[in-house]
C-alpha cells in the first residue's frame, strides 16, 4: 500500500487534521528543519527524481539499431506519441480506467458503508482484515489465479459444465471482460479503505439529526453521508483511476494481445520493440496527464479545506 501511496501521492486515509499541522514552528531554526527533511529529499531524489531525469533524457534521444540509442536531441518521440494511430490505445486505457473506477465505486461504497456504520463493532477488524488480506499474496500470483479461474477448462467453466448450464466452455479469458474483472478485483481495496475511513469518522448523531428533521433513510444518506464522505470518496477515485490508467499486468495476462493499453505500449517499447526513447516519451506524457489530474484534485481539496476553515 505504501508503494501505491508513493506512486499516486494520495494518502489512503484522508487527513482532516493537516489544517492544524500546517504551520508548526521548528524549535531549532530553519536550518535544522532542512536537515530533518533531508532523508525525504534523498529518497525522493534517488528513487524518483533521478529516474525521471533519466527518462526525460532518454525521451529526447533517437532509437538506434537493436535497441541502441542515437544521440538526439529531438522531439520526434513526443510528436509520434500524439499520432492518431495511438489514439485507440489511449482511448481504450481511459475507458478501462473510467470503467474500473465506476465499478469499484459501486462495489466499494456499500462494503465500506457496511463495515463503518452497520457491522457489529467487534467484527470490524475482521472485515477490514479481509479487505486487506489479498495484499499478502503477490499481485502477479493473484492475476495468474484469475487465469485459472477464467480459462476454458477453468473453475467457472468446469462448474457451469458440470451443472449442465452450458455445454461449450464460455470464452472468458483474453477478453475485455477478463481485463475488467482483474482490474476491479485488484483495485477494490484501494477504494474501500479511504471511503471506510471517511465514513468511520462520520458523527452518527448527524444521521439521527437528519432523520429527526424529517429525512427518510435515503434522503439522510444523500444529504449527509455522501457529502461528508466526499474527501475519502475522491481519494478512492484517484487511487483507483490513476494506476488503472497505466496498468499493464492485468491486460497482458488476462486480455491477451488484442486489447493493448498504454501500459503495454510503454512496456513493449522497453522490451520487444527495442525503442526506449519512444517508451520514455509515452511514459512521460502519461505522467504529465496524471500530474494534471493530481493538481486538479489538490486544487479541489484546498478549496474545500478553505471553505471549511472560513
Amino acid at each position, binding site marked *: 500500500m505504501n508503494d501505491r501511496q508513493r506512486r499516486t501521492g494520495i494518502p489512503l486515509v484522508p487527513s482532516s487534521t493537516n489544517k492544524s499541522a500546517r504551520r508548526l514552528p521548528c524549535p531549532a531554526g530553519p536550518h535544522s528543519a532542512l536537515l530533518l527533511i533531508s532523508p525525504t529529499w534523498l529518497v525522493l531524489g534517488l528513487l524518483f527524481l533521478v529516474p525521471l531525469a533519466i527518462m526525460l533524457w532518454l525521451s529526447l534521444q533517437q532509437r538506434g539499431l537493436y535497441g541502441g540509442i542515437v544521440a538526439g536531441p529531438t522531439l520526434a518521440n513526443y510528436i509520434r506519441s500524439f499520432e492518431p494511430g495511438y489514439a485507440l490505445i489511449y482511448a481504450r486505457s481511459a475507458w478501462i480506467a473510467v470503467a474500473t473506477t465506476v465499478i469499484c465505486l459501486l462495489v466499494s461504497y456499500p462494503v465500506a458503508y457496511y463495515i463503518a456504520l452497520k457491522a457489529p463493532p467487534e467484527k470490524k477488524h475482521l472485515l477490514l482484515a479481509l479487505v486487506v488480506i489479498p495484499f499478502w499474496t503477490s499481485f502477479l500470483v493473484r492475476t495468474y489465479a484469475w487465469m485459472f479461474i477464467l480459462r476454458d477448462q477453468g473453475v467457472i467453466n468446469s462448474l457451469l459444465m458440470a451443472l449442465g448450464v452450458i455445454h461449450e466452455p464460455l470464452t472468458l479469458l483474453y477478453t475485455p471482460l477478463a481485463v475488467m474483472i482483474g482490474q476491479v478485483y485488484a483495485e477494490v481495496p484501494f477504494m474501500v479503505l479511504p471511503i471506510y475511513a471517511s465514513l468511520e469518522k462520520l458523527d452518527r448523531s448527524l444521521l439521527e439529526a437528519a432523520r*429527526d*428533521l424529517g429525512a427518510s433513510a435515503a434522503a439522510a444518506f444523500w444529504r449527509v453521508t455522501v457529502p461528508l464522505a466526499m474527501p475519502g470518496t475522491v481519494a478512492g477515485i484517484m487511487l483507483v483511476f490513476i494506476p488503472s490508467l497505466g496498468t499493464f499486468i492485468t491486460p497482458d495476462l488476462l486480455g491477451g494481445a488484442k486489447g493493448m493499453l498504454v501500459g503495454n505500449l510503454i512496456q513493449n517499447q522497453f522490451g520487444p520493440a527495442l525503442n526506449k526513447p519512444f517508451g520514455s516519451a509515452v511514459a512521460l506524457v502519461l505522467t504529465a496527464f496524471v500530474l494534471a489530474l493530481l493538481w486538479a484534485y489538490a486544487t479541489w481539496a484546498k478549496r474545500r479545506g478553505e471553505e471549511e476553515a472560513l
Partner: protein
Amino acid sequence: MSDVILRFDAVEKHFDATPAVHGVTLDIRRGEFFALLGPSGCGKTTLLRLIAGFEQPDAGRVILDGVDMARVPANERPVNTVFQHYALFPHLTVTENVAFGLRYQSKIHDPESRIEEMLQLVRMEGLGDRKPDQLSGGQKQRVALARALILHPKVLLLDEPLAALDVKLRKEMQMELKTLQRRVGITFVFVTHDQEEALTLADRVAVMNLGKVEQVGTTEEVFERPKTKFVAEFMGAVNFFDGFVVRPEKMRLRVTAVEGAVETKVEGKVYQGGTTQWLARTMDGRLLTVIEQNDGVPDAVSRLKSGDRVWVKWEKRHEVPLQ
C-alpha cells in the same frame, strides 16, 4: 383536545438484558416545560430516544397527542430534537441547517421569511452564511433550537441542552430557553443530570433512577416533598432520620440548648459564598448538614469551631416523611 400531549404507558426497554427503562408510566402535559432528571444510566436519555423514535419500546406504548407511535418512524414523528452536541451539519451553513427539515413539510409558503423569522427568534440574524465550526457553543445551541423549532414540533426534545456550555453561558442560556419556551408555547421535554438546572427550567420534573420514575411533580413538590430516599438525596436533602428527612437549609444552629433542639458537636464547615455548610454529629452518631445564610451579622454561630457543642433546631412541619 386532551391536556396530555405525551403519554408513556408501561414502557419497557432493555439493552442486552439490562433494563434501561423499566415500567415507565408518565403523562406530560401540553405546553409544559418538563424535565427528565436523574444520574447517568438512569434511563432518561433512552426515554427521550423512545419519543424521538431512535429506539423502539420492547413493551408498552408511547402515545403522542393521542396517537400510538409504535409504527411511526423517526422522520414522520411530529417531534424534533436538540442534540447534546447539537449535531449541526458541518457541511451546511447556518441557514441551510435551519432549512434542512423544511422540504419534508407539506405546506410552506415563503420558507425564506420563515427561516429569517427563526434566526431572529434565536438572535442569530445576520449569521446565516456561517458554517457551524465558525460558531461559539451558545450560537450552535441557538442554531440547533432554530433548526428544530422551525418545524413546529408538538414536542421539542432537548438532550442535556446546556451540558456543553461553560457556567456563565449556561446561566444565560437557561433564561433564554425559558423565555423561548414561553414565547413559542411548545411542550419542551429535556434531559438533565443537574437538579439545579431542572429546578430552574422546568415546570414539572420526573426524577428517574435505575430505569424507573421515582417521583413526578412540580419542581417545588419534588424539592420540598421528596417521596423516596433516592429523590430526597438527589435533590440535596441529606439529613435522614427514621422515616423522615429534613433539608439542610431548613435547620438552624443554636449555641445554647433550646427546646426541641438536638445536641451535636461541630465536625467542620464549608464556606460556599452565599451560604456556609456546617457538619455536625449528633450524640447517637448521625452526621447532620446545616446550611446557614451568610447574612454578614457576626454572631456566636459564625465563631463556632470544630469540636464545639452546638444545638440543631428545626420545625416539625419541615420533616418530610419518606416511603
